[in-house]
Structure formats: structure tokens, C-alpha cells
């Protein structure tokens, strides 16, 4: 485990309130990239432009709508979008109690356990600190113009209650604001 992860775990264990962003995270860089596997694994603080540059060398792309390239991939994940979610294969996170956890992996087909890696897409930094993400990538030639995804807020109170309870699962001390 890297030193930064251990530091982050300590910070989270000792914190009462935290607002997560990529500067605070200070954890960036491509961890693994196998073009023939169509998979890239990155630290969440990595700028999207840096990932794109790496992929471009092998004529591959992140096959989802990208609005801005100077933000971190973790920020895009936290904001959430369905087409981004479609490409997520796995995440490593630190939950609100400081535990370092792994869900999903680096393979395209994986149905072991609930799909936490995709559940947390759109969690807005309020459930856990996402430290590492694996994405499925595609050859550029297969990806046409990508439409901007749209989303809307459901007003079903039961759904809101479920989301609130799920926050409790990952952040029982309610430290992520």
C-alpha cells in the first residue's frame, strides 16, 4: 500500500469534517495500462488530459462524454454520468471509517458481489474517498461522436431515503460534506 494511502486513512480516521477534492487527495498518475486488455487503471487525482495523452499513443480513448479535460478523473466519477459508469470496471476507496476497500477489478465481466464500483458513480464525494479507478477503454475508430448524457433528479422520497441509508453504510460518522 502506498504511503499516501496510509496518510489518507489516518487523515480520515482523525477528521470530523472533510471536503474531498483532487488537491486534498494529492494522489495522481496512471497505475497500469495494457492497451491489449482495453483497460487503464489510474489514481483518482489524475487529470483527464493526462489519461487521454497516454491512451492516444495507442489510438485508444475514454469512450464517454468529456466536458472538460483539465479536471481530475475522480471529479468526473464523483459527478457521475451513465456513459462514464458503463466504462467503470473497479475502484479502490477509503470509507468514512478509514478502511481501504477494493470493489470490482480490471476485467470486463465481473459479477462477484454487488456492483459498488458503479454504485458510487455520482456519489459526489459524500460516501467515500475514491482513490483509484479502472476503466474500459476503446480503439478510437469504434467511437463516433459521443452525445452529452442528460440526467434528472427523481423526486421519489423512498429513493432519497435509500440514498441516505447508503451514505450511512459507507460514512457512518457522516464526515464527508
Amino acid at each position, binding site marked *: 500500500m502506498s504511503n499516501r494511502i496510509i496518510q489518507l486513512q489516518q487523515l480520515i480516521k482523525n477528521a470530523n469534517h472533510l471536503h474531498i477534492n483532487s488537491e486534498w487527495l494529492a494522489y495522481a498518475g496512471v497505475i497500469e495500462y495494457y492497451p491489449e486488455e482495453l483497460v487503464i487503471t489510474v489514481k483518482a487525482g489524475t487529470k483527464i488530459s493526462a489519461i487521454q495523452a497516454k491512451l492516444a499513443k495507442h489510438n485508444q480513448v475514454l469512450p464517454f462524454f468529456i466536458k472538460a479535460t483539465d479536471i481530475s478523473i475522480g471529479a468526473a466519477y464523483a459527478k457521475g454520468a451513465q456513459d462514464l459508469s458503463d466504462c467503470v470496471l473497479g475502484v479502490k476507496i477509503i470509507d468514512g471509517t478509514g478502511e481501504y476497500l477494493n470493489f470490482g477489478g480490471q476485467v*470486463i465481466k465481473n459479477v462477484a458481489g454487488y456492483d459498488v464500483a458503479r454504485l458510487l458513480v455520482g456519489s459526489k464525494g459524500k460516501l467515500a474517498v475514491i482513490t483509484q479507478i479502472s476503466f474500459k477503454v476503446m480503439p478510437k475508430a469504434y467511437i463516433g461522436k459521443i452525445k452529452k448524457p442528460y440526467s434528472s433528479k427523481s423526486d421519489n422520497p423512498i429513493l432519497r431515503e435509500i440514498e441516505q441509508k447508503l451514505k450511512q453504510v459507507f460514512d457512518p460518522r457522516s464526515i464527508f460534506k
Partner: protein
Amino acid sequence: MEVIQQLLTQLPKSIVLTGKENTRPFECDGLSVYRQNPLAVVLPENIAQIKQVLKICKDNNTSVVTRGAGTGLAGGAMPLENSVVLGLSKLNQVKSIDAENRLAVIEPGVRNIAISEAVAQYGLYYAPDPSSQIACTIGGNVAENSGGVHCLKYGLTVHNVEAIKMLTIDGDELVLSRHDDGLGLLALMNGSEGLLGIIIEITVKLTPTPAFARVVMAGFDSIRDCANAVADIIKAGIIPAGLEMMDSFAIEAAEGFAKVGYPLDAKALLLCELDGTQMQVQAELDSVLKVLSGASTLKVSESEEERLNFWKGRKSAFPAVGRLSPDYYCMDGTIPRRHLADMLEKINELSKKYQLRVANVFHAGDGNLHPLILYDANIGGELEKVEKFGTEILKLSVDMGGTITGEHGVGVEKLNAMCHQFNAKELAIFHKIKAVFDPKSLLNPGKAVPELHRCAELGAMHVHHGKLPHPELERF
């Protein structure tokens, strides 16, 4: 029993089956080594009846096992002791088709192939195609996040579902859509194995039927060359519609069964399907043939009939192997493609160690392996041996950076292997997620996620976070 009485009095008698003789057809799913009789089976004809069943079960603290067609291969739909089976096969209507937006709204009991049949007139089809597609239901597909031969290019179930309607154990209706702002609840329901809610309506995405498709069949003198060819095709920037691999034993079995002209002297066979417009297919074909120039035999389908023929062997591989042995056990691990050849060698070693034959059939394009271990359940101790063998393969899959199940799910079958893939903290999160939806644990309890004490007893916990077996393997 009170719960049976209530079911019989509060629902039409015709939809409630009780007594061993009547419930026997439901005592197992596709994994028939595990069997259990339920208290009753209810086959509701509408949503109101499902709600009634849930209410009765909740009032009586009785567990509910939702069932589609029962083709699952992990015991997911196998009844639990003292449970009620909720069979959704009668909810089998395609409710609406929106050809322009390529969407269809369907009931959970519709069979996978029936969707494609219903929309064929619009030049569309439903892409995920599990080999069981003539029988399995879309509800079961969502609950398992099922895959098929065409996943690499067209995605899994989760990628092809636009929205679902579900019932919670309390009978509340929830609509989850791809376009919801907030947490990924729709993705969470995909692959939830009947533990979080009952899926009662699905809006699926439809795909235009490709104008052309051709299959390249390539035989290789060594498994390693074949595995390398898989990587080389992807490296060349090609995403085949399907990319399947078989070893010599599987080739022999399939050829003996289907007589399709597979090269019997090959150590490994690759089937690579390319689809799209005529121009796209031709361009891809040129590249693929270049990559495969080292193959010992190489054939391209020249007609639609020949293309289907090439597939026929692959698609009948399971029944073909079934002919050679009284029983077989189908594994489902997934590994990063670069480890394919190593994995096959290890499986061969294990096959010798356990003295059990194995036929290997893979979704090579996405690293999903289906080793079929041949055995005879009537020989005492043989099944236990198979399970040990299988567990070793699954551990290897995890150690290589993969997973214990690519598409068949955990069910009751892979509970032990889950202890190897996840540590206690991760499993605890899964249990808490279930409790959010189902606090009294009445929906398919005990499946999919092992209890922590089970893993502790196995001594399997933390293996992959502490000292690792097989240190020579490259890993994530």
C-alpha cells in the same frame, strides 16, 4: 402452516403450488447438484399478486426466492428451506416497442430470445445473448447481469438496460433509470441475484441488426499461440463482435456432436466474428487475417449458412461435453487476457493432479473462462474432488487479478470462493447494502454474499491482501 394457508386463501388457488409433487419442478435451477423443496411456489399473473405474496411472506417472516426460468448456474433460484418461490414466468408480455428510440418495455418473464423476435420486424435486436437465451428470462438476466458471446463489442446486460421498475420487500414500487441524478442504483440492481428487490418491468435498449457478419475460424498448434492471437487482434485495434476459444478436448467433443468441420488436429481453435457494414467487415477481415497468418488452419465463412455452422459447434460445446461424461461442472472465472495461456497450463496441471478431465471453452475476448470439469456424481467423493479442483481454479483467477465469476453469479455455489476475493470489511459493506433494502433479510437470504463466520472457518479470509500464493504471477 400459516403462510401456506394465507397464500391459498388470499390468492387464486390456480397460481399457488404446494406439496412436494407439485413443487418438485422448482427444487433446483441449472445447477442441479443442489436441491431443496420450498413451502410453496406462487406463479403470479400481475403485480398486485406479487405485492400480496410479499406482504404475506413479510408478515410471516418467510423468505422469498424470486425465479425466472431457473436456468441459473449457481443455485441463485434454488429454493431455501421454508421459503416461498416467486416464479415470474407468467409475466411474459412485451408491453411496448419504441423503434425510433430503440427501446422496448417488457415484463420480467419474457425470454431473452423473445425480445429479439418481437423487434426483428424493425431491423433491431436485443444484444446480450447468453447461450441459454431460448429459455432464460430478462428478469433473470438483469438479476445476474448476464453476458454472452457478443459482450466485448455490445456490452453486458447492465449496458443494455435503460430503466427498471422494482418492488421492495415492503411492496413499494421504485423506478430506476440510467438518467437518474445521484447514486448508481440501477447498476446496483444489475447482478443483485434477487437479494435486494423484485424486478417487475425492464426497459431494454435495442441495437440495429448488423447488415453483415462473417466468422474467421483459426486452428493453432499450441494454446499459447492461440491466446497470443487473441491479444494481437485487440492490439491491432479490432473489436470483434465475438471472440471465442476452445481447447483440443472441446474441439473434439463439439465436432463429434455437431459435425461442422473443426480441425481435429488443432490444439486450440479461435472463432472471431466481425460485423457491421460490408465495408467495415472487409476492412476488419483484412487486418484479422494478417494477424492470424501464423495459424495452422484458417477459414472464413463464405455464406450465412456457413457462419451459423461455425457457431453451431461452439454453441453445442456444453451438451457435446455432456455426452462424454455423466456429469460436468462449469466454472466461470474471468482473468486479464494476458494470463490466458498461463491459466490454461495451470488448469492442465490441476487436471492431472485431480485425475479429472477438463474441456476448456472461453469467451476469450473478455477473459471469461468456462472450464468444464468432467466427473461422475455416482462415484463417492468425486463431487468433493471437483469442488476442490474448482476452488483452486477460482483462487488462481483472483490471484491473476480477475474474478471468481464473470457472468453466472455467486448464488450458493461460490460462497466459499467469495471469501478469497473479498476481505471481511468488504463483505460487511455488502451485508449492510442488503440491510438497506431488506432489513429482515427475507429476499433470497444467505446467497451471493457469505457470512463472515463462514469465511473465518474456512481460514480463507485476507489471503489476497496478506501473503499471496503464486508470487510468480504478475498481478494487480
